[in-house]
């Protein structure tokens, strides 16, 4: 089985995001960019499937600016076999991304596509579900455990009330939650080897997909600031303040 994994280039999760002074977006210049953390989990899961013999090939796909190829190289260094980059502008919307992925799936015919449950930039949590709809495939979202069985897979999903287990027919879409696995670090020899792995680049037009935006960003602002309050001396003062000043207990 061939496995496709989605990898997105986003601001590194340790970086404090800053809103641009003109309120058109967030500052991306000279900011450390990394693979979306949920996508690292996708790559890890697919590479483990290859190591276990259940996947023959792992293809890492990224949609985005030219530097997204660096993110694909990271996936290749983790163990993916080859990469596909579709060049697109920063801020391309989930529906357009799902359409591009559908076009790639139609060409590549994978048995499984693994995506992150959300990207930590726009936090939409849509692309995997949209891709599943466009393909008419089943979906297992927010997955913390994945088992392949004959002709299908069993997935444990993290839902608000606890855990839920579902069975899907293959081919299928899976989106990853944090506890699915712990992604490996790419070693230096593997980073060197990754430079020689094949990486195709194409445009949305090559795939025949219209990626026109449906949304206009009117403005991006800082969240309302929260001022630090007071330090209390002991528990008695804390309870007194909560009771008589804040009136919350």
């Amino acid at each position, binding site marked *: 089985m061939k496995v496709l994994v989605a990898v997105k280039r986003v601001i590194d999760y340790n970086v404090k*995001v800053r809103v641009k002074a003109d309120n058109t977006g*967030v500052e991306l210049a000279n900011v450390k960019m990394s693979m979306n953390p949920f996508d690292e989990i996708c790559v890890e899961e697919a590479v483990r499937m290859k190591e276990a013999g259940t996947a023959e090939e792992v293809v890492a796909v990224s949609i985005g600016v030219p530097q997204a190829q660096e993110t694909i190289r990271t996936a290749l260094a983790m163990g993916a076999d080859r990469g596909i980059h579709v060049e697109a502008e920063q801020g391309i*919307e989930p529906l357009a991304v799902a359409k591009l992925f559908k076009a790639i799936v139609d060409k590549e015919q994978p048995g499984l596509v693994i995506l992150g449950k959300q990207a930590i930039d726009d936090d939409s949590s849509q692309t995997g*579900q949209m891709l599943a709809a466009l393909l008419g495939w089943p979906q297992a979202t927010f997955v913390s455990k994945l088992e392949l069985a004959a002709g299908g897979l069993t997935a444990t999903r993290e839902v608000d009330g606890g855990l839920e287990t579902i069975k899907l027919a293959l081919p299928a879409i899976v989106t990853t939650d944090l506890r699915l696995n712990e992604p490996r670090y790419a070693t230096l020899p593997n980073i060197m080897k990754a430079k020689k792995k094949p990486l195709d680049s194409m445009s949305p037009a090559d795939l025949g997909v219209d990626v026109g935006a*449906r*949304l206009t960003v009117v*403005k991006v602002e800082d969240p309302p600031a929260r001022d*630090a309050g007071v330090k209390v001396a002991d528990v008695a003062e804390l309870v007194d303040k909560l009771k008589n000043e*804040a009136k919350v*207990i």
Partner: protein
Amino acid sequence: MGVLVIAEHDNAALNAATLHAVTAAQALGGDITVLVAGSGSGAVADAAAKVAGVANVLHADDAALANGLAENVAPVIAKLAPDYSHTLATHTTFGRNVMPRAAALLDVQQISDISEVVSPDTFVRPIYAGNAIATVQTSDAVKLVTVRATAFEAAAAEGGSASVSAVEAAGDSGLSSFVGQALSSSERPELTSARIVISGGRGMQSGDNFALLEQIADLLGAAVGASRAAVDAGFAPNDYQVGQTGKVVAPDCYIAVGISGAIQHLAGMKDSKVIVAINKDEDAPIFQVADYGLVADLFQAVPALAKELKKQGTA
């Protein structure tokens, strides 16, 4: 045109999360219709009909809809949505699973996790885990939106008298099936709707020590939460997790115990009305957002807090 709200439920009771989506729907104007898609879910349809402000309830009842599988629920939503100006669901794991699937079936770019309605086509939503707030305008004629529950008050569960009418389900896709669930059972209030939340972090040192927090929770009628660090360390189950990748809460009072205040945790609780931090490290970032900070060893402070609450008869 009116607004369609997708009910979240377990076939027996309407989930309170839906009441917040009803309030968001009221901000859009027009009649509000609630869709209850389930199996043996008549009680939910009746409950939805009683919600203040709801004009109609559509009830799709079919065995294929019993467990909220996206493959079977999304086509029902996609068939109905074009008759409404907006279709709303709460941005819970249910809404996040089902709504984008329906949106793609309709060729609509969904707008996720809105915190404010500016106008019928313009919405405010947090991005980068709430570190930036975006205002976006959509050009889609049919609008699918998920709603951040904590940003909208709950509509009153009683006071409405909507009519209930049956609608057809879309059958079983045959692509997926429900195996089972392991839901956490607790006498305490649900994390996302609790008035008071007490959460523990890595400083708790072990899962057993969460009993300290549970004691306070029971005295205050609070829910218990945890930071990602505590969940990753195995101190608490995943459904306790508050943060960017867990649950977003905004209670009247949030008590953070042994939590340093990583960006991703703050993203899940900084809209709480009053924040209390108990941490022995006075430089912990959590103190920068706390209204009341207590620099103390939690293993002394929390038992002392329990004693003080008992003494004052707060319980």
